[in-house]
């Protein structure tokens, strides 16, 4: 039967695809390529350490020279860890790891039992003994078996070789470490696909729903405790406890009260809710020529919120709560305990900052144009974080598998002895060599000790 000849073009394409595929395998299975990927990963990670992440563009222009700030914003270095480059490099590492594991690690770490040219290996030795080869072979095998080696014999072209392996199973340590890393990556991917997280700042008395859980939290009360401590460099006001008392409704459990404190989250329908921060909401009264101004949002402002004066381009931002204003100087103090509170207000006109002021609670501040503002009443709010992460068990398992792989790879040194016993004029000649998965230097001392002990046992 005639077979179709490949056309010139078709042959070229398939040869090129084949060549490209081989190049891909060669590159991705090369440890040096993996190290290059590690270097890029490491540099990107370090950039994220040095450059503050997740700030708004103007912050970088405040922090750095304009060309540098522009570079940071344009290259997405303000959000390195969620950039395509970062995710891409981890993807490439996983790909390289998979290719390498099948192409290189398994064949290299689990070599077939084959004869070697003993004197060509770095760790080798030979000696003669007066006994016949059969006796010597048996005692060599017994010598290694006694020391916990796995002893196997094979014949090649009529020559019998003895292979003695130490920690043979530990050759799979690298595989275990690599699999651990893949499992961690899978756990992280599950969170991206199915998890969610966010935060809520809930004012005392307010109810907030936790997205996707169907549950709502009412903050009954929030308390924090601050302890003043005299240190060598001055007074330090150390926060010692934050506690939110909440009522949980709408979850699969009947409505109930719960306490959330730092390090002690609560579980609502599988979503964990944590105490993360706190702050002060503020109610303001705005007047024009002494009369209350209508049309302003009635709600309590949180730090960072702003309101616009009606029929003006003027914005008043509630920048910061000041727990204690020094009565003598009128300046803010570092004492976070509330005794003479106030607020820092920033004033903007058409988006441009025109001034800032420190206003005491209950005292009006003149804003010009007949307007005045009074910070009236503060309300504590609790900063809560929620997170649903179904990938956690997998990440945990992956971490332990990775750790087990590291320990197996680093602390157990698989070594293989190749022993060949030949007839010699006065008995037998024993030729032996050894290899390990980490080169010969690491085993030189033990090799010398073992060969010396073997010689002694035959003497």
């Amino acid at each position: 039967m005639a077979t179709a000849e490949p056309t010139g073009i078709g042959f070229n394409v398939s040869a090129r695809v084949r060549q490209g595929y081989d190049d891909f395998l060669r590159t991705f299975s090369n440890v040096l390529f993996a190290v290059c990927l590690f270097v890029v990963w490491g540099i990107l990670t370090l950039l994220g350490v040095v450059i503050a992440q997740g700030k708004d563009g103007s912050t970088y222009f405040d922090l750095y020279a304009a060309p540098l700030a522009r570079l940071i914003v344009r290259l997405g270095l303000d959000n390195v860890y969620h950039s395509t480059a970062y995710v891409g490099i981890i993807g490439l590492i996983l790909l390289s790891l998979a290719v390498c594991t099948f192409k290189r690690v398994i064949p290299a770490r689990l070599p077939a039992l084959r004869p070697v040219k003993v004197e060509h290996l770095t760790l080798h030795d030979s000696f003669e003994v007066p006994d016949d080869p059969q006796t010597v072979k048996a005692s060599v095998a017994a010598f290694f078996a006694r020391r916990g080696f796995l002893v196997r014999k094979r014949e090649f072209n009529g020559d019998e070789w003895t292979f003695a392996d130490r920690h043979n199973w530990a050759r799979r340590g690298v595989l275990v470490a690599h699999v651990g890393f893949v499992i961690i990556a899978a756990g992280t991917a599950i969170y991206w696909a199915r998890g969610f997280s966010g935060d809520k700042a809930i004012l005392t008395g307010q109810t907030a729903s936790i997205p996707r859980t169907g549950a709502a939290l009412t903050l009954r009360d929030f308390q924090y405790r601050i302890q003043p401590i005299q240190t060598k460099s001055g007074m330090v006001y150390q926060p010692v406890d934050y506690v939110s008392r909440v009522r949980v409704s709408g979850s699969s459990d009947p409505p109930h009260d719960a306490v959330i404190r730092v390090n002690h989250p609560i579980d609502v329908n599988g979503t964990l809710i944590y105490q993360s921060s706190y702050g002060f909401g503020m109610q303001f009264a705005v007047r024009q020529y002494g009369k209350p101004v209508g049309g302003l949002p009635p709600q309590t402002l949180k730090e960072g919120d702003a309101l616009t004066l009606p029929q003006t381009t003027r914005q008043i931002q509630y920048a910061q709560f000041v727990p204690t204003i020094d009565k003598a100087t009128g300046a803010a103090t570092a004492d976070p305990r509330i005794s003479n509170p106030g607020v820092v207000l920033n004033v903007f006109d058409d988006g441009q900052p025109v001034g800032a002021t420190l206003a005491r609670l209950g005292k009006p501040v003149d804003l010009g144009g007949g307007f005045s503002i009074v910070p009236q009443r503060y309300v504590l709010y609790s900063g809560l974080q929620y997170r649903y992460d179904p990938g956690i068990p997998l990440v945990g398992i992956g971490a332990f598998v990775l750790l087990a792989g590291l320990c197996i790879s680093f602390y157990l040194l698989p070594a293989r002895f190749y022993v060949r016993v030949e007839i010699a004029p006065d008995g037998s000649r024993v030729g032996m060599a050894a290899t390990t998965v980490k080169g010969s230097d690491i085993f030189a001392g033990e090799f010398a000790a073992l060969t010396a002990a073997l010689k002694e046992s035959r003497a």
Partner: protein
Amino acid sequence: MSLDQVFLVISLSTYAVSALALVAYFFSRDSWLKNLAVPLVIVGCACQFAQLIARYELTHIWPLLNLYGSLSLFSAMSVAIFIFFAFRYRLWFAGGFVVALAAIFLAYGLTWNEGSLPPVPSLQSYWAKIHVPIVVSSYAAFMVASVISGIYLIKNYLGARPGRGQLWLNTIPSLAQLDVLTYRIVAVGLPLLTVGIITGAWWAKEAWGAYWQWDPKETAALSLWIFYAAYMHLHTRNAFRGTFSAWLGLLGFPLMLFVFLIVNIVIGGPGISLHSYKM
């Protein structure tokens, strides 16, 4: 003087004397210097751990959660890890440099001593007692590894220049042995750092809601992990063992210092890092 201060003074003075004796031993190979220094190093290290315990007894606050505490532990662990390796692999010739560095870090740590400050709420967790010592121990192992790498490079440099120092050079273990030693010490540091990151992630999950927050301290530790993972991978190749590995081992030291100290002192502050000690 309180009991912890007494221990501190003993450690610092024994480290100073033994570092001098061991550096002299490095150059002279007079064994009496080693015989004098070894017991002093052991006493100094024991006193440092005793000092940490005494400080806990006095304040009932774990002496780990500020820079003074972690630097004291770092210095004690560097010496403890070194003692272990020195006995196992006859490493005393390198002791002067390790002990001198440990003493410098301990003295520097003292400048951060603010007295007894209770930890902020997120640090009030039993994880602090597990995570911090493990991470600090990994840093200590990397420091010892970098000292051995430094000695490798000195020997390699001088060995290539025949001269009067050759006899002395021969008393230092071979380059191959120094390379293997560095590898073995990194092989202690990297799993410790891995456990440190895992326990930190576990703790973060309890304290801040997510096991990984991309906080500067976390990501800095990750970069150190990546660095040593790259070291280990390069070390699987014959061509990269030796001088190249030694340069990497040495480079690990400034990177470790960056991760341990610079991130806390310069980069991370309240509002930037959840790991700030200055809160």
